[in-house]
């Protein structure tokens, strides 16, 4: 039985956005001219028997395999542009506060015991942790879903953010180094490795931990490691100096920096397993 009302037919045509009423009437009349009798059960069974193997073949559904690599945004220029975009996440307030933190810390240390090198070694990991939390705040800002809908993968985004964190922290610490070294008889690269080692180590722990426990969990783990190092170390030297008492500080710092770099490499390689958003997937 077909539709009799012209209004109804017009409504259907409007929705479909094509054809005209005359043609539709012709089609309906043509269909009406054929009396349809239900097919016999044997014929239905025969048809089903013929179709079953074909339908089964087409209905095989494979589990979704997320590809390991993407074909766009892999060039160096595109990655640098992404890093540049991540710089927008820094607010003026954060930059001013972190610079003030260093300036005040250095001034206070100079006024108290003058061991600015020790301050730098202890403050650089803290700066690293704070920068990581600030730069990776997308989830707390409910921005991660929006960012996940963009063509860059979560791994590419995270890599760009780690790069920004590293560059910012190193630049700030280098600026502080020039203040610390001014008029002092320090060997520059030794001053640099003295703060670079704990910085890389805490960043490595934070980012590797974040793969398992999220960015806050990773940062907490890293803060705990930093606090433990402060509590366990003697005379301003690191925990490694305590564990390797007869090794020169220079080698201990290089060892710490090396371990930090290895942890960061592990974190980078772990990130490449991330290709899709795994946010609050309990929400329907």
């Amino acid at each position, binding site marked *: 039985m077909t539709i009799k009302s012209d209004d109804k037919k017009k409504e259907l045509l409007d929705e479909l956005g094509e054809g005209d009423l005359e043609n539709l009437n012709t089609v309906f009349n043509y269909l009406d001219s054929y009396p349809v009798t239900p097919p016999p059960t044997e014929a239905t069974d025969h048809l089903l028997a013929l179709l079953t193997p074909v339908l089964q073949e087409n209905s095989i559904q494979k589990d979704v395999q997320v590809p390991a690599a*993407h074909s*766009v945004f892999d060039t160096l220029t595109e990655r640098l542009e992404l890093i540049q975009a991540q710089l*927008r996440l820094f607010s003026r307030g954060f930059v001013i506060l972190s610079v003030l933190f260093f300036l005040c810390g250095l001034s206070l240390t100079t006024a108290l015991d003058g061991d600015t090198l020790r301050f730098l070694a202890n403050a650089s990991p803290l700066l690293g942790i704070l920068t990581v939390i600030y730069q990776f705040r997308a989830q707390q*800002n409910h*921005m991660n879903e*929006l960012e996940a*809908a963009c063509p860059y993968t979560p791994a590419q985004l995270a890599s760009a953010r780690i790069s920004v964190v590293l560059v910012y922290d190193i630049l700030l610490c280098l600026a502080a180094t020039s203040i610390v070294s001014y008029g002092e008889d320090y060997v520059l690269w030794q001053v640099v490795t003295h703060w670079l080692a704990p910085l890389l180590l805490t960043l490595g722990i934070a980012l590797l931990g974040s793969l398992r426990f999220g960015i806050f969990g990773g940062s907490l783990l890293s803060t705990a490691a930093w606090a433990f190092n402060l509590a366990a170390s003697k005379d301003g030297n690191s925990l490694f100096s305590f564990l390797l008492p007869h090794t020169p500080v220079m080698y201990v710092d290089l060892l710490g920096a090396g371990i930090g770099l290895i942890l960061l490499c592990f974190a980078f390689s772990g990130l490449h397993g991330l290709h899709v*958003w795994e946010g609050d997937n309990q929400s*329907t």
Partner: protein
Amino acid sequence: MLELHEVTKRFPKNAFILGSINCHLSTGLHVLAGPNGSGKSTLLRIAAGILPPDRGNLLFGGQDIYANLAHYKKNLGYVPQTFAFYSHMTGMDFLLYLANLKGIFSKAAKKQASYVADLLGILEHCPRKISTWSIGLRQRLAIAQALLNDPDILILDEPLCGLAFEETTEIQRLLYTWSHNKVILMSSHHIDSLPIAKLLLLCKGTLQFAGLPSIFSDQAAMQVWTAKTSKSTWQNLHLAFPLSTAVFTEDGCHCRIISNTKPDLPNIKPALPTLEEAYLVWLERLKRNEAEQQHDHRM
């Protein structure tokens, strides 16, 4: 064309299963309706390629989107249901940031950000920090960012939520314009005044209906009734038929009653159901069917 074949997603923690979903979405506006918790946002996230399904395929232009997800996302504009902004950013900073994330940089990003801001009527607010914006302005900003890359597919999760009446009307007009050359899939509770090409009804993770809105409302024929009554009669009627609505006038009220049997009222006539009334009829019917099934199961 966006195609979903046997798409399934399971959430073992709360025993929720979405699927299996089959639908073909061509150019036009497709509205996903359903009660809260029915899986609309999950389905939209899957369609946006940000939440992989456990099983099934998503094809765009005949290609599996997971064969080149980045390419698919380059053609996608997405507005999530819940989102916030980086509080230190101005509207323009936010649009430029999202433009960069979509692979649009420097002058092209500025030009496109200004264009979409102007289109959504927020350009004059863009130099201000987003933290000072109203909810309606933020919602328009969210829609604006989805258009930055001039996408072929727009996926919008409750885009009309939080908008004032005049803003809703303006967005509906824009949706109609975009629907001529884009595949638009959006969830909304306001379905009556949208130029819908295909309506999808999702209930408890199952797609109950996917088709023309006229066919959807035809299923509710002879279940919507109209009558003119006094205000006191209406109060009793509303208790008996809770899904009914009324327009009050000086001398009484014009009520529209949803009931699968004709209510016993003088001068009552059957009315053509609106889409929202049809939606309520569908939900009632599904609820009844489910109750009957549970009853049969116990027997």
